[in-house]
């Protein structure tokens, strides 16, 4: 049994200290993921991360140990992010034309770093790319975490990469 699973079992039995240990183990990943989703807004990301962990505490008995615990947390974080965004109506849900329709002033690699380029992608593309590349999840795992069809996730990854490449390369 992994350390996460042992802690999950104790937390499910009401052990708040075990849940605290789980939080300490995973806070960096969850907050990092949410910072990317919120386009680098640490305050908004941390608010969402707190809500994510509170919801995880309430639902911990529902975690059946299928897949990594971090993946389960990412799923909650993603749904929290979507709920918050719907409330604020910040940006359209599937804005894939964000880059294509924008004024083409693509910055050079020297001027724009990955995070700035990421901020210009649609949220689902940011999430899919982050899960599949930075956290090493398979497309299938990312599809489960984001509750999207596998084909949609693959398309988000492909399109996101293309957009990033265009943004990072700048004018040739």
């Amino acid at each position: 049994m992994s350390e996460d699973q042992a802690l999950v079992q104790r937390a499910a039995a009401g052990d708040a200290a075990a849940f605290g240990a789980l939080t300490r183990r995973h806070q960096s990943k969850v907050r990092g993921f949410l910072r990317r989703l919120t386009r680098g807004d640490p305050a908004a990301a941390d608010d969402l991360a707190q809500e994510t962990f509170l919801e995880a505490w309430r639902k911990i008995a529902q975690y059946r140990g299928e897949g990594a615990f971090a993946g389960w947390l990412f799923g909650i974080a993603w749904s929290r992010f979507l709920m918050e965004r719907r409330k604020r109506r910040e940006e359209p849900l599937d804005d894939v034309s964000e880059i294509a329709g924008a004024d083409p002033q693509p910055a050079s690699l020297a001027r724009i770093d990955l995070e700035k380029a990421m901020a210009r992608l649609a949220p689902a593309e940011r999430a899919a790319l982050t899960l599949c590349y930075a956290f090493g999840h398979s497309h299938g795992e990312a599809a489960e975490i984001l509750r999207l069809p596998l084909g949609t996730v693959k398309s988000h990854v492909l399109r996101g990469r293309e957009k990033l490449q265009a943004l990072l390369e700048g004018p040739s």
Partner: protein
Amino acid sequence: MNDGRTDALDALLARPLDEVADDGFSSRVVARVSASERRRHYLAFLVPLIGVCALVPFLPFSEFGDTMAHLPPMLAGSGPIALALAALILTFSLEQRLRA
């Protein structure tokens, strides 16, 4: 289609995210978890209590009092109760003698 540019982009994307220092984040989460648990426990105690209090005016206390007032004479006049009491007294006194 895997040229140097896509390799570089893949490497950039695969770079782990920067470590986020805890800075009390986990403690705040645990404090909120503990607070929500306390609230849950209070609610688990208060809701039934409020329910019982709400029911009190509708409980048949007068009938209950009447029944209680008639109970001792009823018990005193009951043969089975008298036998059971006698059996209890005998058992108790026998036990006391055996211990002595």
